Every structure is written in structure tokens, then in C-alpha cells.
């Protein structure tokens, strides 16, 4: 057991918010490198492939940003709920149902002017995601059922519900696979190819689309909501000290529900990227784990939009670079990168305080020496 007590007020912000996460990340990558080595491949080559795959050519970089978009949504979703001290691990299910919202709005209102369809579809995604989060929120606030349990159950329920819908209700009946018909092409969100054409770059295909800007806007939205509005203030108050919130006349019930609904809504926006932007139809299992990885993104980003952006980008790099590696190195499977993600979660989340005291006290002593000298 370490007995190091660090005077927190002396730790510069960049040590606790930049250096410590970087150290944890490096450790996770080192251990991952070891795995790669054991699997019989050269870790240095793997790193080169990751970097080339995610930055080396324009299409690869576009893929990286496309993944980043999804992680921003699910990372923000987790962070918002967490500021009310709610552990929303139901991002996966909320994103799934959010996708249903996008599709239903877009397909039924496709006769409207295109930008209006987009806006309504975004709204639909948010609303459906929020509605799916509302039920666990209600159960938490009124009945005390813990959201960790209920949200994870709601992931399974969402999955079953969507399978049912995709098989029996909204399946494209011209074929047998569990997915819907495609949306009319007119209302697809413009993808990066279209823009790159204007810039004179020619690429074959990229999933990156206008939703990326929506993700950036969401970062601002969350920052503004949590720190600049009375709602954010009340959510944080309930999260930090429920007793005090009651004393000040702030309703814990109301704020638990608001925080969870905004959280679920943000997760739902993932559907905009996937359905309006990329596949243009609902496919079974499209959230593909983004909801869970969002937890790691938020933890790594310390639940702040400024941290979530680079964390989401990092996971984007891993996803894109990782698929490049699995393609080039036969001994490395897709699951290896699930393990790498797991290691990052382990080091930046669960073992976050493993080295924090040592690093912080090192810098505190170091800086003091400079001051005293």
C-alpha cells in the first residue's frame, strides 16, 4: 500500500489531466505490444501499420474520423450522466433505438425539404435514445433500481426488440437478411467524397459524413449544458451531494431523469452517423460495441468535452489502424484489438490511480524545487 499523500491543490492541471493519462496510455500500449510480440508479429511494425492505416492516406484518415464521430457521441453520453453520478452503461441500446428513430422519421417524412428531414431525423434519433434511457431513469429516481443494472438489461431488451422489428416488421421484404430498405438517396447526408471532389481530391469511398460536424457541435453543447446552464448546475449538484440538492430545493428525481435522457439522446445520435450517413438502412447490431467503448472514451477524457475529443480520436485511430493491422498481419485477429481496447480501459479507468500519486508527487517536488531555487 502506498502512503503517498499529495497536496492536490499543488498539482498543476496539465500533470493530472495530460501527463497521467498519457502515461497510462503508454503502459496500455506497451502491454499490447507484448501481446503482439507473443502472437509472433513485430510490435514496431504493428505501430507503423496503425499510424499508416489511420493517417497515411486520405481514405484511411477519413475512416479514423468516422469512428471518432461515433465515439464522441457515446463518450459524451456517458459523461453527461456521470456528472449526475449516474453510471449509464446503456449507450449501446440507446444508440440502437436512436437508429430506429432516425430511420422512422427519415423514411416517413422524406417528402419534406431535405435539410428539414435531416433536422427532424436528428431530433428523432435524440428523442428515441432519450426515451430508451427514460425508463431506467424513472426506475432509478422513483424506485431506486440502480441504473447500472437496468441500463445493461435495457441493452439486451433493445437488441431483442430490434431483432424482432428487423425480422418481422420493418425488414426489406425483397430479401432475407435482417435489415430494412434503404432510405431514398436524396436524403442521405453528404459524405466526405462529395466534399473531397470539390477540393480536387479523388477517393473511392469513405464513411465520413456531415455527422462529424454534428459531433463537434455536440461537444460544445455538452460543455455549455454542464457548466454554463442552471440545468447542468443542478445535475452536478444532485450528483455531488443529493442531500444538499434537496435542501436547496433541487429535485433529484427531475435531474436524474434529465441527465439520463440527455445522455440517452446523445447516444442515439450515433444512429444519425450510421443510418443517415453511412449504411442508409438499419442493420441488425449496427451499434457494434460503440456504446461500451464510449465508457472508456469518457473515462479517458475525464468526462470533459475537451478530453473526450482526443480520447475519441485515439479510439478512432485504434479502430482504423487496427483493422489495417489485422489485414496485413495474419497472426493478429480482430479480437486482439478488442483486447487492446480492454487494456486501455483497464489502465485509464480501473488502474487510473496506479501511478497517479507517484507522478503527481514527482512533479510537485520537482516544481517546488524550481520555485525554491
Amino acid at each position, binding site marked *: 500500500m502506498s502512503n503517498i*499523500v499529495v497536496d492536490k491543490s499543488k498539482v498543476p492541471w496539465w500533470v493530472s489531466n495530460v501527463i497521467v493519462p498519457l502515461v497510462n496510455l503508454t503502459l496500455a500500449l506497451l502491454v499490447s505490444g507484448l501481446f503482439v510480440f507473443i502472437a509472433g508479429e513485430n510490435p514496431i511494425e504493428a505501430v507503423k501499420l496503425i499510424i499508416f492505416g489511420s493517417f497515411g492516406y486520405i481514405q484511411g484518415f477519413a475512416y479514423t474520423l468516422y469512428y471518432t464521430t461515433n465515439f464522441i457521441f457515446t463518450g459524451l453520453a456517458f459523461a453527461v450522466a456521470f456528472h449526475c453520478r449516474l453510471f449509464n452503461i446503456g449507450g449501446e441500446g440507446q444508440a440502437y433505438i436512436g437508429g430506429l428513430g432516425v430511420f422512422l422519421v427519415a423514411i416517413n417524412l422524406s417528402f419534406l425539404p431535405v435539410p428539414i428531414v435531416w433536422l427532424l431525423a436528428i431530433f428523432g434519433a435524440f428523442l428515441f435514445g432519450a426515451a430508451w434511457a427514460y425508463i431506467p431513469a424513472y426506475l432509478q429516481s422513483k424506485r431506486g433500481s440502480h441504473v447500472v443494472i437496468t441500463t445493461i438489461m435495457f441493452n439486451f431488451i433493445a437488441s431483442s426488440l430490434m431483432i424482432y422489428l428487423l425480422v418481422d416488421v420493418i425488414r426489406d421484404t425483397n430479401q432475407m437478411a435482417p435489415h430494412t430498405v434503404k432510405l431514398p438517396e436524396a436524403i442521405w447526408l453528404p459524405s466526405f467524397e462529395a466534399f473531397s471532389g470539390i477540393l480536387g481530391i479523388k477517393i473511392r469511398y469513405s464513411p465520413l459524413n456531415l455527422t462529424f460536424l454534428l459531433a463537434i457541435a455536440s461537444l460544445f453543447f455538452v460543455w455549455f449544458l454542464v457548466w454554463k446552464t442552471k440545468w447542468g*448546475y443542478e445535475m452536478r*449538484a444532485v450528483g455531488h*451531494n443529493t442531500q*444538499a440538492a434537496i*435542501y436547496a*430545493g433541487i429535485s433529484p428525481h427531475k435531474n436524474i431523469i434529465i441527465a439520463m435522457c440527455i445522455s440517452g439522446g446523445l447516444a442515439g445520435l450515433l444512429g444519425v452517423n450510421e443510418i443517415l450517413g453511412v449504411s442508409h438502412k438499419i442493420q441488425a447490431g449496427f451499434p457494434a460495441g460503440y456504446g461500451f467503448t464510449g465508457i472508456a472514451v469518457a473515462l479517458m477524457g475525464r468526462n470533459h468535452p475537451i478530453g473526450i475529443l482526443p480520447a475519441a480520436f485515439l479510439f478512432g485511430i485504434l479502430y482504423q489502424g487496427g483493422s489495417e493491422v489485422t489485414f496485413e498481419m495474419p497472426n493478429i485477429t480482430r479480437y486482439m484489438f478488442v483486447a487492446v481496447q480492454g487494456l486501455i480501459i483497464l489502465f485509464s479507468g480501473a488502474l487510473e490511480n496506479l501511478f497517479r500519486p507517484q507522478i503527481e508527487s514527482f512533479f510537485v517536488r520537482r516544481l517546488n524545487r524550481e520555485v525554491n531555487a
Partner: protein
Amino acid sequence: MVSPILELSNINKSFGHVHANKNINLQINKGTIHGIIGENGAGKSTLMSIVFGLYQANSGTIKINGKEINLKSPRDSIINGIGMVHQHFMLVENFTVLENIILGFEGETVFGEKLQKAKQDLEKLCQTYNFNIDLDATISDLSVGFRQRVEILKSLYRGAEILILDEPTGVLTPQEVDELFKILRALKEEGKTIVLITHKLIEIMDLTSEVSVMRQGEMVGHTKTEDTNKEQLAEMMVGRSVLLRVDKKEIKKGETIFQVNNLSVKDDLDVTRVKDVSLEIRSGEILGIAGVTGNGQTELLEALSGIRKVESGKIELFGEKISDQDNFLNPRMLKQKGLAHVPEDRQRMGLITDFKAHENLIFGYHDQEPFSKSSILNNREITEYSNKVMQEYDVRPNSPNLITSNFSGGNQQKIILSRELNENPKVLLVGQPTRGVDIGAIEFIHQRLIDMRDRGAAILLASVELDEILSLSDRIIVMFDGKIVGEKENKNVTERELGLLMAGVA
């Protein structure tokens, strides 16, 4: 000349911009009870945490028995014979006394012979100092006074020669305080050295042989206790002369503005804690509620301030019903009607200690102009306001962006007070306004309450400090077992009279 057992020279310690200890020199002689007194935030606890190895000083040396030592952690201090009893006890609730004492000290004593040996040693210690503790009792069954004894015993068992006690009497009843003092005197007789950190002058005069005074991070004086008196010490603590008694004008009673009829309230465990209480408060008067903690004052205040549901009866403000068994207005609505509440437990209820000071200064008023407009917080207004009130209420340090838990108890209380008094409430409910607050701040807080009264507010003051009730109240009611057992005008009431009522015997 006795040689000092503990000698500190030129100790410096800063937290961020706050210089908590400035060039502290201190000598503590063997076999004495040495008092360290100072306002909250004066740096006493910081200094002792350095001695106990919890913090490391930025500079300065610590000598024990003339030998310079380097204390990197509490373990080093324990090895060097220093023990500390914290304000908040560090005990495992569902372990026995014995288990708590040997916990972490000797890994192998949990079973067998060594355990028996430890038990015998402890029993001997208990006898020597008359501790009267059952070593096999579970901590959760013990009262606060006994838990404190376990802490002391733990330190002694680990070989403490110097025992540091941080505000030991804050949580004790008067009888428990007497018992504690007996134990401390016995320890002194046996040659142990005791360092007593406190802000209560009576304890210093009662117990210590030497006293050191701290003010704003500096050591402002050392003296033998017999050469000084309470007034002089108080003056040294706050740096000016202090009125230990409150000056207050003749009462100008107005009409009744707050009325409670036949109120009953249940607690969270569904036990009726307030039984059929009726009271009224007039404009311009302070109604004091005296009583031993846990006789329903907490639940009464919570019901009156809209936090807790009323079981039966009703509450009226300006003749308008605000609460009965069917519905109650929530605290924010009550605030808008001019009812403010300074809660008993400032850290559990009055503040969000993880928030910055300016966020706490608007807590509960955050959705009103000018702090927020159409739900968006106006940071410029909030900062401007925070700077203003923190100056006005002398909150130290005057930094609105500091996290609230970094302020001392007294300054935290001032943050709450400034927030609740600023709107000029018509009715003010106050619980334990000066618990854990230093003398300088007590005087300030009392004066603010008197000012509110003179401006015509109706004030309900619940306090376990009889002194406070007697010096502030115009009228006193005594609560026992949830009922009002006595009501007196505050003229020629004696502490004895109230004490008997509080004990439920009169």
C-alpha cells in the same frame, strides 16, 4: 530547564496560494499537556499533520528528543512515538475494539497466542489509565466517547509517547468531555506528552500547562497557561479584543409571522421524532431551541424548511399555510416567500464541498436573476457578486474559484450565512450556526444574527451550545424526546434550569 521532546523549527507549508504554515517554531516539553489554539484555518491541523507525517513540510526541521528526523508518512511518525487522534475517527465499524487496535500493526497477531498476548497488554493499558473498555465490543455499538478512547488506546499500544488530539471534544457530550480529561491527566501523570489542538479556550485553561497560539498560519505566541487568561488568549487568536458576550438591543417584538400548530414529523426510519409541537415566532425576536442532540430538533428544522414531509399539524408563514400532511412547499418556493435556512450540517446539506466557492454562494438561488437569465448562468455577475460578499463576510481566503472543501469550517459557514442572509429573509431558521467554528467567526456570526433580528426578521435558532442559546435568544423553548418540555422568556434563566429540562427531569 526541561529538554523538549518535540522541536519544530522554521516549518513552512503552502497549499497552492495559501501559505498555511509560515516559519513555525514550536517546542513541546516532555510530560506536559501542550495546547495549540487558533481560529479555524489558522494552520493548527496542518502543522500537526506535518508532525504526524500526513503532509510533508516545504521546509524546516523536526527534532524528537534532540534528534532530527525525516517524517515521510504516518508510519515514520508511529515508529518515532507520535500518535494522533483525528477529529474523524479512523475505525472499522464492524470490527471489535481489539481487531481495530491490532489492525495493520502486527500482521501475525490475528490468531493464536500473540492475540492473547496483545489482549493482555491492552487490558493492562486499560487498567493503568482507567479506560473501562470492553475489548471484544464491536465499534458500531460504542458511543462516540468510547470510540475516541479506542483511538487513544490504539496510539498508546503502538508506543506513542507524544499524543496529538485534534479537536477532541467537538463531538462529545459534557460528561464525555470530563471523562476524556481524566484520561488525559492520567496519561500526563505517566509521563506521556499530549498536544491538544482546540479552539475552545475553556479546555486550554482547564487542562494545559503550556499554550501556543496560531493566527493565519503564524505562531503568534507561547506562554504558560497559568500566566494568561481567556480574554488575553482570545485577543491573541483573533488579533484584536473580542467580546465574549453579545451586545444586543432591547427587543422590539412585532406580530407573529411564523406559526406552527400541533406538528408531528417522522424520520427516515418512520420513527416519530417531533411530537405535537406548536410554536410561534414574532418579527424581531430570536426563539432559541435548546436540547440535547437527537431530541427532534433536526427533524423539526427539516420540516419547517420544506425538506421533510409533515406527518400531521400545519405550518403557516404570514398566515398562509405552507405545509400540512397533504402537501408541502419545496425549499425553493419557501425561499421566494422569504424563508431562509442555515442547516445544521453544513457539509452534508448546506454546501457541495466539491463545488467552487462561487457555485456554493449561489446555491439555491442559482436560477434567479442576476445569477442566471433564461436558464443560462451569468458567470460575470456570479463572480462579481462572489467577490463582493466574500469580502463583506470576510471569507478567507477570498478566492471564489477555490474548491469549497479547501476552506476551513468557519469560512464554509460564512459562505452559507452570506448566501442565506443576503436576500434579507423574513424568517430565518438556523441550526448549530457555530458548530466547529472559531471564536472570531462566532462573534461575527452572532452579530449578523442579531442584526437580522433588529431588522425585524423572525429567527429560530436551534443549538446544542447553551451559551449560544442564552446569549442570543429572546425566548427559549426546550425540546426533549420530540416534545416541547418548557418555554421561558430569556430573563434570569440559568443554565441549570435549562439543563434539567433538557435532561427531561424537570
